């Protein structure tokens, strides 16, 4: 499989295009977007490093698509500047920004064959015929769609159409690839496969900078180097994916990025040299990983459902007790819904004891301090 090299240059710059790993960074400098008096994106300052995948996730209306459209040039910022590489693109029209974009409904041109769709951007930019042929071949090869070059979009499945849409965006060797909920229109099984394919694609094109907008946290967790979580037109948290998942800085992040059990606790002994604090939940003393929690502070102890266990071992030094309410079997996973002193708690497990307790039974739950994170209760979001 030949990979498409890409650069922060025009499609005509063949020599530069052969340089791998020369993607551009994207810099939001206090970018805000408003429709009349209604602010949909509050001043946003953010950097996406060259070759990085940044996933913007958040609920509908949180401003994530607006931020992407501002980069693409389809909405004009009310204030602030956007830079791609060394170029300030704020005032440039979309066709001069050197981007590639893939949208939710693919937007393949139905009157063009697959190869013409992929060639579209190159022809629009006046690339010569030989270059167009070479790039179309490369791009279709990259997404495994070479055999479908002569087909029309209507003759392809949803997943195939999305691959062609990606090939079309890659063929112009974009400075930045913008993916706007690219998998939302696919069914669950194909979506899972496509997430893996995009991950593979990025491994083969490590310099490609990607801004990936989605409301699906699984896609974000699988693909992104960094995640920005949006809420009400603001970034409520931003950081490396694993860090955000393991140490969510606020309640919204903990609950939006994966499932989280949040036990209200009071810090009885602040964070020590090993990074752990002691906290009280009801009459139980628990240990959790913290940042700079002070003694007496109210906090939330975040425990992911897969980190709770019904069985004790040497590492499971934390113990709480809950009342089993429901058991949901989902094939690969079984979910136990419990009540711990009025707080709903979920356990997700691949393996459970053969004899599960009946609903209504009191069940001890165990977890490791290293698998927890103390989340400030009054983080403002």
């Amino acid at each position: 499989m030949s990979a498409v090299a890409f650069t922060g240059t025009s499609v005509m710059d063949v020599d530069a295009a052969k340089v791998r790993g020369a993607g551009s960074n994207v810099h939001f400098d206090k970018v805000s977007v408003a429709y009349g008096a209604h602010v949909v994106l509050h001043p946003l300052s953010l950097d996406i490093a060259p070759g990085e995948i940044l996933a913007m996730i958040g609920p509908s209306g949180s401003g994530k698509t607006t931020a992407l459209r501002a980069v693409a040039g389809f909405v004009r910022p009310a204030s602030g500047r956007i830079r791609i590489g060394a170029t300030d693109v704020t005032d440039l029209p979309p066709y001069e920004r050197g981007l590639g974009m893939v949208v939710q409904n693919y937007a393949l041109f139905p009157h063009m064959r697959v190869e013409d769709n992929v060639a579209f951007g190159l022809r629009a930019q006046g690339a010569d015929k030989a270059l167009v042929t070479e790039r179309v071949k490369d791009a279709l090869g990259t997404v495994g769609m070479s055999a479908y070059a002569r087909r029309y979009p209507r003759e392809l499945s949803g997943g195939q159409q999305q691959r062609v849409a990606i090939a079309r965006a890659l063929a112009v060797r974009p400075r930045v690839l913008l993916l706007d909920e690219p998998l939302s229109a696919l069914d669950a099984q194909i979506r899972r496969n496509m997430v893996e394919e995009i991950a593979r694609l990025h491994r083969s094109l490590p310099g490609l900078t990607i801004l990936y907008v989605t409301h699906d946290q699984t896609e974000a967790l699988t693909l992104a180097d960094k995640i920005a979580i949006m809420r009400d037109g603001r970034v409520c948290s931003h950081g490396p994916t694993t860090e955000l998942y393991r140490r969510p800085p606020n309640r919204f992040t903990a609950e939006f990025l994966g499932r989280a059990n949040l036990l209200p606790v009071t810090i009885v002994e602040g964070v020590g040299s090993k990074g752990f604090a002691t906290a009280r939940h009801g009459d139980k003393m628990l240990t959790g990983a913290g940042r700079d929690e002070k003694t007496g502070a109210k906090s939330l102890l975040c425990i992911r459902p897969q980190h709770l266990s019904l069985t004790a071992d040497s590492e499971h030094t934390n113990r709480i007790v809950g009342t089993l309410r429901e058991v949901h079997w989902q094939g690969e996973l079984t979910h136990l819904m419990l009540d711990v002193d009025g707080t709903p708690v979920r356990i997700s497990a691949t393996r459970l004891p053969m004899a599960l307790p009946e609903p209504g039974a009191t069940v001890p739950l165990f977890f490791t301090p290293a698998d927890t994170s103390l989340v400030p209760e009054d983080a403002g979001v």
Partner: protein
Amino acid sequence: MLVWSRSGRLVLWVLFALLFGVLFLAPLAVILLSSLADQWNGVLPSGLTTEHYSEVVSGAAGSAVKASLITGFLASTLALVSGTWAALSLRLQGHALRRLLGLLFFIPSAVPSVSVGLGLLVAFSHPPLLLNGTVAIVMIAHFVLISAFTFGNVSAGLARLSPDFEQVASSLGARPAYRLWHVTLPLLAPYLVAAFGLSFALSMGELGATVMVYPPGWVTLPVSIFSLTDRGDIFAGAALTMILVAATLILLLGLERITARATGS
């Protein structure tokens, strides 16, 4: 399916056949029979003949067909270009302005065509806009009357067109003209063809305004039909009407084939 029972569907089909037969087929059948009637004094013609067709074809029919086709083609083309242009431009305006200008486009279609003809006659009877007695004023009259329909059709097509197509094209480096030619217009093709077909059919049948403004030597089919029937030559008028129907039908069927090819259906 709204009606499940077999008898209910049968009743509906009979009702539909009756309505269609009485409202659409009967008038056409009467005109067809009239165009072929030798004498018609009873319920049905006493004999059939093609003499009326020979008569109108050897007479003014040829030039009337030509005048109607040229007028219809040019006026519809002009209406298509301006209607598409207007629809594309108004799309970029604010909601209020777009609605206002959109409504203005439809005003001529709400005015009796005779009044439109009269208005043009008065407006273009004095220098520097002296068009009275020219073919151009016929074209303008038809253009004014049909442009609302092209605008309406193209606007409807644009409203259904996802902005994603054009935005993706722009992000790939397509400048506005390239995007318009290679993306927007091809995607609008079915609506453009439908708009042209509707405009052409309306133009072919237009009488009210044309009769007010037509110059000697540019007598369209409806004007010829009107003249013949006005003189009492009903059978020749019917024959000319059938020629008008056939010409319009052939063109519309041709356009439909083009649309089917463009959309791949």
